[in-house]
């Protein structure tokens, strides 16, 4: 059986949701992962979208966070202010699942602007969306993005969303209640914050990926766990579920 690197990423992102009860699903790749988790490892996972749906059970991947099926299949639909104030901010959500344009070694995120160098205008990214408060208030945060030196950078051009700030203790100092990012899942492997330094460390490679490849694709000098592991290959069931989902909708929801 063969698979693409995007499939490896999504399957592993879904696996990271094992044990989660509720997930605030950010726009982008997270929606594919969270929907796959509901079909595989965590069938009871409650999907929460910032468009106001609690407990959506879409039959296909939504193209946008406002697809009608998210509302039609939800346990409850609430207003956007309510979803942010009563549900997210109140700390009721176990996992926040985010994509990102730029990530640094402390899992901080930039989705606002790209510095293109002196004399050139800033490049525009979509903006913050729900991310700053998702990352602040969920019990923990998962991130999923494609691995490249453009995405995994030495220094963010702008801090839209705080992961671990400038290191240990920063979240507490800033008054961010959740534990923050616990894993960054890419198409090459999985990075996790070192418990002592909060710096992202390569802890797992996807099958067939080398440490050198990952270091090469990372914009900072990436630390590698001494006992770096290899993620289990996608099972046929995982792939079948993912492909069924993707056939029915967009893969980059």
């Amino acid at each position, binding site marked *: 059986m063969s698979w693409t690197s995007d499939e490896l990423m999504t399957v592993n992102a879904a696996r990271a949701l094992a044990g989660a009860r509720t997930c605030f699903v950010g*726009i982008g790749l997270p929606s594919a992962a969270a929907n796959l988790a509901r079909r595989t490892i965590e069938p009871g996972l409650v999907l929460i979208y*910032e*468009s*106001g*749906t609690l407990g959506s059970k879409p039959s296909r991947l*939504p*193209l*946008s*966070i*406002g*697809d*009608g099926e*998210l*509302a*039609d299949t939800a346990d409850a*639909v609430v*207003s*956007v*202010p309510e979803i*942010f*104030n009563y549900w*997210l*901010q109140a700390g009721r959500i176990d996992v926040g699942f985010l994509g990102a344009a730029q990530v640094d070694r402390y899992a901080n995120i930039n989705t*606002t602007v790209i510095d293109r160098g002196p004399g050139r*205008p*800033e*490049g*525009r990214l*979509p*903006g*913050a*969306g*729900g*991310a*700053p*408060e998702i990352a*602040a*208030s969920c019990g923990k945060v998962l991130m999923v993005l494609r691995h490249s030196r453009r995405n995994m950078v030495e220094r963010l051009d*702008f*801090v*839209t*969303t*705080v992961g671990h*700030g400038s290191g240990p203790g*920063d979240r507490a100092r*800033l*008054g*961010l*209640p959740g534990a923050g990012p616990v894993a960054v899942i890419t198409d090459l492997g999985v990075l996790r914050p070192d418990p002592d330094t909060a710096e992202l460390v390569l802890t797992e490679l996807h099958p067939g990926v080398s440490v050198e490849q990952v270091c090469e694709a990372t914009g900072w000098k990436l630390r590698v766990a001494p006992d770096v592991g290899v993620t289990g290959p996608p099972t046929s069931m995982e792939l079948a579920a993912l492909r069924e989902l993707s056939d029915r909708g*967009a893969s*980059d*929801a």
Partner: protein
Amino acid sequence: MAEILSLREAVAALVRPGDTVAMEGFTHLIPFAAAHEVIRQGITDLTLVRMTPDVIYDQLIGMGAARKLVFSWGGNPGVGSLHRFRDAVENGWPRPLELDEHSHAGMANRYVAGASRLPFAVLRGYRGSDLPGRSPTISTVRCPFTGEELAAVAAVNPNVTVIHAQRADRAGNVQLWGLVGVQKEAALAAERVLVTVEEIVDALDPRPGAVVLPSWSVHAIAVAPNGAHPSYTAGYTVRDNDFYQAWDPISRDRDTFLAWMRAHVLEAA
């Protein structure tokens, strides 16, 4: 009390050059038909407010209707960038676009404060983010009971809010359901409220999940069937995902964009 007008009359009566205009609808019920009428009437110098600018504001911005954008996420959902928005911000085409940029939680609470006629709202937000440094409408406030410092965001009170809804009755009561987003707050925050609807009915039979805006909280209603296209109206139309994908190549190029707008908006209606 809401007046039932044609879309042309309603836009002419309620939207003025230089206004702060919120067109809301969180993916669902986006008032495209009204936006197109604003473009056709050449109303400009607008401050556009919207959590998720989306294709609707890409069109207004690309046609030069906006001098400023107040927002929290500006992309083509599920597709990619908004090219006209980026061109305006990055290159000042067709005119420079001032930005006031928030998170979703911040924007949602700005509308809540506006609807409540409070000057600001409080939230746990923006902590450690660079966003407050770029926005004069983000500050802090201290809890008088606990001493905790929290984020404060300034209320948004648009001159006009425009929304699309499923239907209204003849008395001008408006009913919308499905994803109701931030429309109630955006409408109640505004001085003037324009609602486009799929249809006018004799009576609004109650619907699960429906929000009703009484006639006396709305200023003008215009019938605009399929008025949310390419967005959708739950119970009436479905989202035109193909259009969102098609918008990417249309909007990448200035001339292609202008030709499309000419053919489908300016010379339509």
